[in-house]
C-alpha cells in the first residue's frame, strides 16, 4: 500500500514538499511507516523512527494495521516560544 505522509513546518521546508510517499506491505502498521521512512532517508533515520504519526487525525497504538485511504500525518513539533 502506498501512503502519502503529510509533513509540515521546517520538515516540509527542508523537503520542499507537503508529503512523502511511502510504500509498505498490506497490514502494515504505523510502526512500519516510521521504519520505511527511516530506511528511505538514512541521514534522518533516528528522527523518522521516533517521529509521532497521526492516523486520521488522532494518535493510536503503533501496531494497529493501517487501511487504504488512511490519512497519515507526521506530528513532530519543534516546540519553543
Amino acid at each position, binding site marked *: 500500500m502506498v501512503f502519502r505522509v*503529510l509533513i*509540515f513546518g521546517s520538515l516540509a*521546508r527542508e523537503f520542499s514538499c507537503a508529503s512523502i510517499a511511502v510504500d509498505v506491505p498490506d497490514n502494515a502498521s504505523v510502526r512500519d511507516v516510521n521504519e520505511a521512512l527511516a530506511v528511505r532517508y538514512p541521514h534522518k533515520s533516528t528522527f523518522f523512527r521516533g517521529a509521532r504519526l*497521526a492516523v486520521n487525525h488522532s494518535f493510536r497504538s503503533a501496531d494497529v494495521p493501517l487501511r487504504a485511504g488512511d490519512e497519515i*500525518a507526521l506530528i513532530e*513539533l*519543534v516546540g519553543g516560544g
Partner: protein
Amino acid sequence: MSATVRIIDGAIGDPAPVLPLDAQFGAAIVFDGVVRSDEGGRTIRALAYEVYEPMASNMLAELGREMLAKHGLVAIMVEHSRGEVPVGQRSFRLTVHALHRAEALAAVGEFIDRMKRDVPIWKTALHDSPPATS
C-alpha cells in the same frame, strides 16, 4: 463548565471577548501570546502558523476539557491564529475562569506547555528579505 476553541485567520483581535463575570469564580486569567520581533536571535516581520485541522482543534478542545476536569475550572476558551501574524500582534489567547487563582495559574501554564508539545501547529519566521546566499 465549558471548553471553547476558535481558530482565527491572521492576528487575533483586541479586546478580549468578554466572558461575563459571575459570582461562581474568583479568578479570571486572560493570557495573550504576542509575536515578538526577535525570533531565534534574528529580526522577523511576522510568524506564519500552519494548523493541521481538524486535529488541532480537536486536541485543543480535548486539552481544554482535561484542564477543566483536572483543575476544577469553571470555563476555558482558547483562540489560535492560522496564517500570517505580524510582529506585535496577538497569535494566541487563553481565557480561564476558576474558583481560585492557584488553579487558574496552574491551568494556564499546563495548557500552554501541552499545546506547544502536542498540538499540530507549526510556526515559520518570515523575514523582510531572504537570507543572503553565496
